């Protein structure tokens, strides 16, 4: 039985990777370490998850999307474990939780036209009854992200720019009207000018359509820009949480403080005065691109 409250949560989740390449660090990698995270649809909000590469943030995104099953812990939707849902409940979960991925070049199958992502969603979730209705809704969704249907439909992915492609993903989300958006580094591969436009859309979506967004990024200033709540993740654990104003302006955890001290401020009048030094334990030596297998 699902509770009436729309809630997406991870409880005590641990994800362990094992593989040949992990031997240099003891045989296993705890990408996510006993982590709990709670997202509420009511009221809709943006929660930023900020961490550096290797912090576990992308693994966390995939776990919450139900892609790999976590080694330990549970992911629940409306109180029920997502791996124990009935057919109907699973369909609801899949519809209510939608992703935006990082790589605008990888999210479209290069073999098909761009509009296929819309029609697949319409078909799988039975959104409309006729193709005319479907087309109308697709056009409405494209307008919602400031794209003209004639620029996008009938085009192949390589004919669109990175910014346009990410916006098509957002249009697909508009079509599905989920309760939760899991955005994994959605603007990291976009140019700065285009980035801001996309973030504006994301903020609007949260407020206009009531979609709680988990905004995953390594860039603290974009987290500040979208506002809301923030969680700082390091080595698979959340080290600090709170509102963006509190955490980014008055950080209490040393890791957050270090992050803030290292981010260059885009103001030539505010240059670093003191010299920083690296603590040598910060240097982590890893073999590049390990071939990893998840356990579980």
């Amino acid at each position, binding site marked *: 039985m699902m509770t009436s409250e729309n809630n997406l949560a991870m409880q005590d989740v641990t994800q362990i990777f094992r593989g040949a390449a992990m031997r240099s660090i003891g045989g296993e990698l705890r990408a996510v370490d006993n982590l709990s995270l709670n997202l509420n649809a009511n009221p809709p909000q943006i929660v930023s998850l900020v961490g550096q590469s290797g912090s576990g943030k992308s693994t966390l995104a995939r776990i919450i999307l139900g892609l790999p099953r976590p080694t330990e812990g549970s992911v629940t939707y409306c109180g029920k474990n997502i791996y124990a849902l009935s057919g109907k409940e699973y369909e609801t979960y899949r519809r209510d939780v939608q992703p935006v991925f990082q790589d605008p070049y990888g999210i479209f199958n290069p073999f098909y036209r761009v509009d296929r992502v819309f029609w697949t969603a319409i078909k799988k979730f039975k959104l409309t009854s006729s193709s005319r209705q479907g087309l109308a809704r697709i056009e409405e969704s494209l307008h919602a992200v400031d794209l003209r249907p004639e620029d996008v439909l009938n085009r192949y992915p390589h004919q669109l720019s990175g910014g346009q492609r990410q916006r098509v993903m957002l249009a697909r989300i508009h079509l599905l009207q989920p309760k939760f958006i899991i955005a994994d580094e959605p603007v990291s591969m976009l140019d*700065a000018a285009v980035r*801001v436009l996309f973030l504006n859309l994301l903020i609007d979506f949260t407020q206009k359509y009531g979609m709680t967004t988990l905004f995953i990024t390594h860039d603290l200033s974009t987290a*500040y*820009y979208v506002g809301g709540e923030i969680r700082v993740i390091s080595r698979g654990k959340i080290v600090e949480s709170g509102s963006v104003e509190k955490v980014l302006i008055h950080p209490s955890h040393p890791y957050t403080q270090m992050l803030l001290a290292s981010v*260059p401020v*885009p103001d030539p009048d505010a*240059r670093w005065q003191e010299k920083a030094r690296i603590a040598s334990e910060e240097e982590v*030596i890893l073999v590049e691109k390990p071939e990893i297998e998840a356990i579980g």
Partner: protein
Amino acid sequence: MANDLAKVVQKKTGIGSPLLDIEDLKVYYNTVNGVSKAVDGVNLSLKRGEILGIAGESGCGKSTLTTALLRLTQPPGYIAGGSILFHTAEEQAPLDLLELGGEALRAVRWRHLSYLPQGSMNALNPVLRIKEQFLDVMLEHSKIGKREALKMIPTLLAQVNLEPYVINMYPHELSGGMKQRVVLAMAIALNSDLVVADEPTTALDVHVQRIIIQMLADLRDSLGMTVILVTHDMAVHAQLADRVAVMYAGGIVEVGDVHQIFKTPKHPYTRGLINSIPRIGGERIRLDGIGGNTPSPRNWPSGCRFHPRCQHVMPVCKQEVPPLLQVVHRHSLDGEHQPLVACHLYSQPGLGGNHDDE
């Protein structure tokens, strides 16, 4: 740290004199769909002892410009015109880097011109230990003897915050940040005139970024080295650059002092770029960004290449390419430090140069 560096190598002289003059540089690519004019008429001047930032987004041509400068252009790319004049410290006539080949080019490399690539790229020979890399480079490109070089290496490594044990390690055992610092140390060892740093902070852990930025500043301050800093990250320019050249669609649209670029950007593209940078702290205002799409180098827009995305577009913008000219403040006589802008908003008919009415 500043004093230690100066102990190791001599600080350069001639601060402020011209070091590099790029004139009308064109680098094109042959593609199956036509010619791609990645760099199309770039003019740039560099003085000794300054850090010049080259800012621009993907597709603007800055990576092509960097590789051309380092003479690393590979087919199907080719130099289609222009010259790169390098003024060496010895009182000779300037060298055209594009004319050099073979021995002459090797002599210039490392001694006068060194390259700091992106963090995870391998500028280091994977089969040599760090000690041997240093010796390889130092013995080949300078007059330092082997014994002296071996003594210098630990000091050099200390300057870039690396422990002495790194000497005997192989490159694959080091993180991206550590490799960056090794290459920096090599540039210091050879006392290169010019360091070309290509996205030096991208793909590095954030706590290393600050170190690298500070080290590059140190190269300029204590050693008088000149740095060309190529990055799309405006915040890095703000922290490090003395002047910034903004590149768009294969050409330079604005060059100016870093404070001027950030506080009073002149070109509409620069304005859009500055108005796309989120900052931490302060009032949260909505940024506008820049609408439209980046044009393709196979098919640049006519006239001013920014005109399809510009809010101030005028008929002349679609027809004529605006030249890069100095903006002259009415009440300033010193033309040296005035910004350069390529925009029709600033040119008035009948007068020489650009006028800034703001």
